[in-house]
Each structure stands twice: as C-alpha cells, then as structure tokens.
C-alpha cells in the first residue's frame, strides 16, 4: 500500500559511446564570464598547443574539455575574489593553481568550499615548500577536491618564518594534523589552531627538519647508554669525514639557466649592513678624543 507510493530516487542516465554513466554535473559558469580583458590576476595561457585529440607520436594526449573547464573556473575565481587572487595558472598536466595573498587564505578556501559553483568539500593535502632565496621563503600549498564536480584545485600562498598564517581547521577537520605537520617540519605558525604542537619529530627535538638549512643527518643522534640505563641524546658524531662531491660537468647542460640565482634574502641583508656601520664610525671618533 504505502510502500508502493514511496518513490525511488531517480538517477538520470546518460548513454555515451563508452557505456552507461550518470549525467555528470557540470559547473554553471556563465559564458559571459569568459571575458578576455585583463584582470589584475593574470591568467597564463595553457602550455600545451595540441587542440585535437588525434594521437600523435611522442605527444601526450590532452583532455581538452577538462582543461577548458578548469581554465574557465580559474578565471571565474579570479573575477569573484579580486582582492586576494594574485595569479592563476595551469600546469601542463591539467592542474589548476590559484596563487593568493596570505591575508586572504581563509576567505578564498571558504569560498572554494561553500560556493555552489565550487564545492571543494574535501581537503586532500596541506604542504609547504622552502625556497630560502625568496623574501617569503615558505610557499604553502593546499590541495582541494570537489566530489560534486570531480575536479581538483591547488591554492598557494607564501609566508616567512615569523609571519603567522590563518588556520583552516574551522573549515576542514583534516587541516588539524596537516597544519601540525607543516608547523613541525617547517616552523610555519597557524593562528586559531586548536592544538598546534609537534607531530612527527621526537619529544624535545629542536629544529624544523624540512627546511633547506637543516642538514640531512641532523644535529643529534640517540643511543642507549649502559651506565645511565636509558636512551641518551648526543650531538652527532660522523664516523667518516664529511665528503663533498663535485658533480658539475664540464659541459653546459641548461643554457637557459646561465645566470646566477636570484637571491632576494641576500640583497636585503646587503642593503642593511652599510646602515649598521655608520654609528660605529661615530663612536670611534669619540674615543680618539
């Protein structure tokens, strides 16, 4: 009786050449949003030049529709959040990257999670990259996944050792341990984190191991001491001399990278040192008198 009246959930079915698939939901990005005027966030053109899916020898097949959908979505995000989005780029493997100002981290990720056209409800990963030559040496990377639209996006910001960054634990529970790992490995502080403490290193470990200036074997080693009958931590003692290998070839391998690496951190230090030397010369003249 009543059971016959219960309607069953209807799943729309689309029959394609490959087989039966349910009609995939697509983002409703309005066509008028594909504006070709320059926004302040510049969009770099896609790296691949193949426009057809015909197989060619030695060339990777590019999924043109997926790439186009991501490019459109990247432009959409740049238009909706102009205050924080600095740059939008596509990798050669059809991965969308949104580069933002660190002040806008919580807003941008909240937009990507909550907005109807985005719905990135799953946080896949939070990591960091250490590039010591930059002014803001750490580059934070957030990988998000949308189950509704089957797409991924990467959000990148920057910070240095002393500047804290907003925590996104209020949006994603997974961010809790991921941010703890970034804190432990790199030393990036997250404000409003409920429980920011070490997660992978030993208790009482000093230093942030994934930084580029942290040496590969570290600074301390542990061993069991018979007299004290416990594990002791001692400074590291290399049993063989430190070996330095000169692996450079006499032939030039990368002609595009002949120039020296841009070191913004060093340039800042050099600009500071002449200012420091001035007061010291003043005190010398006083002593002579």
């Amino acid at each position: 009786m009543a059971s016959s009246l219960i309607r069953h959930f209807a799943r729309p079915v689309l029959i394609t050449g490959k087989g039966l698939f349910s009609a995939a939901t697509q983002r409703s990005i309005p066509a008028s949003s594909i504006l070709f005027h320059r926004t302040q966030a510049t969009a770099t053109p896609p790296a691949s030049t193949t426009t057809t899916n015909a197989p060619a020898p030695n060339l990777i097949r590019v999924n043109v529709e997926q790439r186009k959908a991501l490019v459109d979505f990247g432009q959409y995000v740049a238009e909706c959040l102009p205050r924080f989005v600095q740059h939008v780029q596509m990798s050669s493997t059809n991965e969308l990257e949104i580069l933002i100002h660190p002040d806008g981290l919580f807003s941008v990720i909240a937009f990507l999670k909550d907005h109807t056209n985005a719905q990135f409800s799953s946080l896949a990963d939070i990591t960091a990259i250490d590039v010591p030559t930059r002014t803001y040496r750490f580059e934070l990377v957030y990988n998000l996944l949308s189950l509704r639209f089957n797409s991924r996006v990467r959000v990148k910001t920057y910070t240095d050792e002393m500047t804290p960054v907003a925590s996104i634990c209020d949006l994603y529970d997974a961010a809790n341990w991921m941010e703890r790992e970034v804190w432990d490995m790199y030393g990036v502080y997250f404000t409003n984190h409920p429980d920011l403490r070490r997660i992978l290193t030993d208790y009482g470990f000093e230093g942030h191991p994934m930084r580029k200036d942290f040496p590969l074997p570290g600074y301390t080693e542990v061993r069991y001491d018979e007299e004290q009958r416990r594990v002791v931590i001692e400074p590291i003692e290399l049993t063989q001399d430190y070996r330095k290998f000169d692996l450079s070839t006499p032939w030039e391998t990368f002609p595009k990278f002949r120039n020296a690496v841009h070191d913004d951190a060093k340039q800042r230090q050099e600009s500071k040192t002449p200012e420091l030397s001035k007061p010291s010369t003043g005190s010398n003249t006083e002593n002579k008198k």
Partner: protein
Amino acid sequence: MASKILKATTNLTGMAVSKDPHYALKLLYGKILRDLKKIPATATYRKYTEDIINTRLGHVESEANIARLERKINCGQIEEVIVQAENELMCVRRMAMNNVWEPLASQAPPNQWKWPIA
C-alpha cells in the same frame, strides 16, 4: 493516505529526508538574496551568485514534484541542494565581511612565484 509522498531514504549516512524541501529552499534562497544586497552591485561575485540562486529559485517555484525538481536543478538530491544553499549563505556573509570584491590588496614580491627559481 499520506498527504505527501516522501522518499524512503537519501542513501547518505546522516542525511535525513527533508519533509518540506520547497519551504526550506525558498527560505534559504530568500535569505541569500537579501544578504547579497549588502555587497555592491558591481561585484562579480554578487552577479554570478544571484544568477545561480534566481535560476534555482525559479525551478523550485515552478516544479512541485521533488524528483523532477532534483533533475531540473541537476546537482544531486534535494537534501544536498539544501546543504548547498546553507553553505552559500555562510559564503555570502563571509564574503560581505571580508570585502572580496575590492581590487588586489597587494602584489607578491618580485620573483615570489617564479619557478624554476634560477
């Protein structure tokens, strides 16, 4: 006889079948549109969100049958559409609070995004 024909389950853990989805959606969409007015009309976020919400509101008001409404909106079950509307409401309030439509706050330092670094 039931005055309303409800589906048995959403097949999603923790998501109960909504008893009056039309009422819930109209309420939420009304709130979203009202809160969107706090954002300046020139903001692209406001334009696109109003388009989306007005389209969906049109579907909700024209279609009384829930299954056909789900297919028209084409974004999952009606209970999921209600969750999306709740999220959009939170999003609108947060965007309005943070003034996201303003021009770029500040550019990154030079070479910040340069890769490879050499």
